[in-house]
């Protein structure tokens, strides 16, 4: 049984990570020439810098222990979100399941191998985002050698919780469903259900933790309480943090192991009886007869070719559950949280504190403020990844772009529209939230910031589309590979870091000058970068090089 599980896990995991090319194919060692290796190093440097800054700040306030709480809260939430989005696709809808079904494999073997695949994906996330902060925490607190041993143990154990829990819930839900007629709608509904559940729990914990009376001294206490509340609900998180703190290591380890034995037992019990039966519900549906007749007069109305092209592009990610969840969901969730937090901050805190209300209401807009807004906007643009997957999402269909009679440049420009449209909504929300808190900002200034954000948004979309065109993932097994396992996303992270550095430079240089000179300079810098990107695209198209890798 274990042999089969390992074999299946290896195949499934390899399928997922095939697009990264971190290892040299012949020597199997890390390929120093691989761009991904270097991009991962850059992201890790940024995480190191950020973690170091936060640790120093917390150390100054004597609150360094909050770091572990908050890191694990963020880590577990990210892992839950990642599992929710990936689990249904990996467990029930990935293409390789159909290849495995004819093999003499037991139901629970296949299920466990799929859960292992999810865990392996989460290990990737952990390595990139949690390992360095934990090492830095150890250094900052002069932790003993045992701390580093327990760190490895904790990192191995942590992702098992979200992966197994979500798989159990998914299996139970699937048991009560007779047949799945609309795979995409089904996945969207199930994922929405999971996400709403998680968000509601988070809101509940935040409400419990934040007191109505605003007090600067209680901020740390509030953050700690929120983290503690969330971590408590995740059963294994607090014991794992205790292990890191060398607090009753064996008892806490035993707690975690017992929880996992129960969870795995439940998973195997449910999986044994239902997993393959559940899979067959997703593959066995076939209509014997198509009934709906076409109304040619209403359904066959001509449209402008470009409009039709955009519409088709939009349908590509709006009608596919996984693409929709990975491109539109995350940004919707963040916008929703942003609105919620702003309204809560405004009504629950500012309006109850006259001093704070006067302070924020009387603030003038500075170039520093503009740069912070632009930085937040850039971070939000990097979530979702509509442009960075615009070509890859098409899979083998992408070649269609090359033989239709629409100019390649026009197609390139059009492909930016979905991402930029969503970004415009994001910008508008950011500005409205800003206006709600800093009431003194004039409409004229908001319009200026809007256009600055727009240029940065178009530039971001342009660059990410170029990355996807140059390094597309066209041959994929499951839609998850296109976004979650897409190594190109590292380019997005690196670009965001670069934009933040540019903004920091602008803030430093134009701090003492007139606000409008600063804004004009910002517009010029990003405008020139956009012009260079556009010229590059035109030249590459002229030389027939831009779409060279789409064949």
């Amino acid at each position, binding site marked *: 049984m274990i042999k089969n599980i390992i074999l299946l896990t290896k195949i499934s995991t390899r399928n997922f990570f095939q697009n990264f090319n971190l290892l040299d194919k012949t020597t199997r060692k890390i390929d120093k020439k691989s761009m991904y290796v270097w991009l991962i190093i850059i992201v890790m440097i940024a995480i190191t810098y950020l973690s170091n800054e936060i640790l120093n700040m917390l150390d100054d306030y004597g609150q360094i222990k909050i770091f572990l709480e908050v890191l694990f809260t963020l880590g577990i939430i990210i892992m839950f979100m990642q599992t929710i989005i990936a689990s249904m696709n990996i467990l029930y809808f990935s293409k390789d399941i159909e290849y495995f079904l004819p093999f003499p494999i037991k139901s629970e073997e296949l299920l466990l191998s799929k859960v292992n695949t999810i865990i392996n994906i989460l290990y990737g996330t952990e390595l990139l985002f949690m390992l360095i902060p934990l090492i830095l925490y150890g250094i900052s607190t002069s932790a003993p050698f045992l701390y580093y041993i327990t760190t490895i143990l904790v990192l191995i154990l942590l992702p098992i919780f979200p992966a197994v829990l979500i798989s159990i819930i998914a299996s139970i839900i699937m048991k009560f469903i007779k047949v799945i007629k609309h795979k*995409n709608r089904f996945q969207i509904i199930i994922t929405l259900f999971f996400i709403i559940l998680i968000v509601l729990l988070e809101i509940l914990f935040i409400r419990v933790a934040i007191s109505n009376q605003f007090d600067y001294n209680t901020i740390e206490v509030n953050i700690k309480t929120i983290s503690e509340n969330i971590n408590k609900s995740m059963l294994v998180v607090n014991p794992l943090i205790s292990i890191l703190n060398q607090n009753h290591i064996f008892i806490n380890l035993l707690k975690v192991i017992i929880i996992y034995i129960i969870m795995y037992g439940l998973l195997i019990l449910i999986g044994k009886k239902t997993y393959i039966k559940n899979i067959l519900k997703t593959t066995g549906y*076939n*209509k014997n*007869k*198509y*009934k*709906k*007749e*076409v109304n*040619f*007069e209403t*359904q*066959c*109305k*001509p*449209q*402008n*070719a470009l*409009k*039709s*092209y955009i*519409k*088709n592009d939009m*349908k*590509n990610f709006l*009608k*596919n559950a996984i693409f929709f969840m990975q491109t539109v969901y995350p940004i919707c969730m963040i916008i929703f949280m942003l609105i919620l937090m702003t309204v809560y901050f405004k009504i629950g805190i500012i309006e109850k504190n006259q001093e704070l209300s006067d302070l924020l209401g009387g603030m003038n807009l500075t170039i520093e403020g503009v740069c912070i807004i632009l930085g937040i906007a850039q971070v939000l643009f990097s979530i979702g990844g509509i442009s960075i997957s615009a070509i890859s999402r098409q899979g*083998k*269909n992408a*070649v*269609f772009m*090359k*033989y*239709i*009679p*629409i*100019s390649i440049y026009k197609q390139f420009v059009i492909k930016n529209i979905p991402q930029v449209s969503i970004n415009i909504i994001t910008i508008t929300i950011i500005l409205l939230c800003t206006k709600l808190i800093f009431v003194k900002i004039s409409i004229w200034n908001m319009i200026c910031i809007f256009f600055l954000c727009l240029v940065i948004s178009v530039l971001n979309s342009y660059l990410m589309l170029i990355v996807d065109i140059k390094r597309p993932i066209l041959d994929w097994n499951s839609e998850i590979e296109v976004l979650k396992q897409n190594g190109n996303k590292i380019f997005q992270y690196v670009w965001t870091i670069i934009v933040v550095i540019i903004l920091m430079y602008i803030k430093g240089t134009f701090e003492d000058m007139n606000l409008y000179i600063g804004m004009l300079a910002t517009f010029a810098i990003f405008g020139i970068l956009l012009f260079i990107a556009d010229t590059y695209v035109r030249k590459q198209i002229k030389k*027939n090089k831009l779409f*060279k890798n789409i*064949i």
Partner: protein
Amino acid sequence: MIEIKNISKSYIKGNKIIDNMNLEINNGEILGFIGPNGAGKTTVIKMMTGILEIDDGDILIDGKSIKNSPYEAKKNIGLVPDSPDMFLNLKGIEYLNFMADIYKVGQGERVKKIRELSKKFDMEEALNEKIESYSHGMRQKIVIIGVLLHSPKNWILDEPITGLDPKAIYDLKVMMKEYAKKGNVVFFSTHILDVAENLCDRVAIINKGKIVFIGKIDELRKKMKDNNSLEKLFMEIIEND
């Protein structure tokens, strides 16, 4: 008319996949493009349709260079690719409308063509369903209908028979003959020699990136001085090459 003029292609420097190939396909002609796996059939089709860059030489589609005037050339092409798994999230009718929009087919013409072709391929009742629910053969049919909506003067098909049921194969063959009769070019690649033998005006046999024979089946038989089937003749040519 399609004119392939001295084209060459290599993926790795010094290793030519297509080596100085020349071929002319006249209006009103059905030409079968035959060759073993890896001979270069799909590479040629990809260069003809602008999917792959041509290293040397040129391809003219009705006198328009695919290299220099790709937009004009592509307007006269209808390609049925080797994989029919296209736009699976769209309904059949949505896909057909999309194709008609891209190739600027007016409402009257599109309604007439969709009605006519979907009836011919027995697809009328499936048009309101998503393509992902179609069988392989149905997907192939919907792609063929989509390609024919704008009545391309040059119909290029990459392995079109694969996955079709006998009736659909028969219908497709009839349609290809009718299409060529109207003065259009029909160019298709196939592994199924039987189809080529019954359908083509001429066949071009490609091996290792070079055309090793071009002409009518009778000419091929004369050349080999035998009254063999196309299958035997094909094997002889490939083995002699």
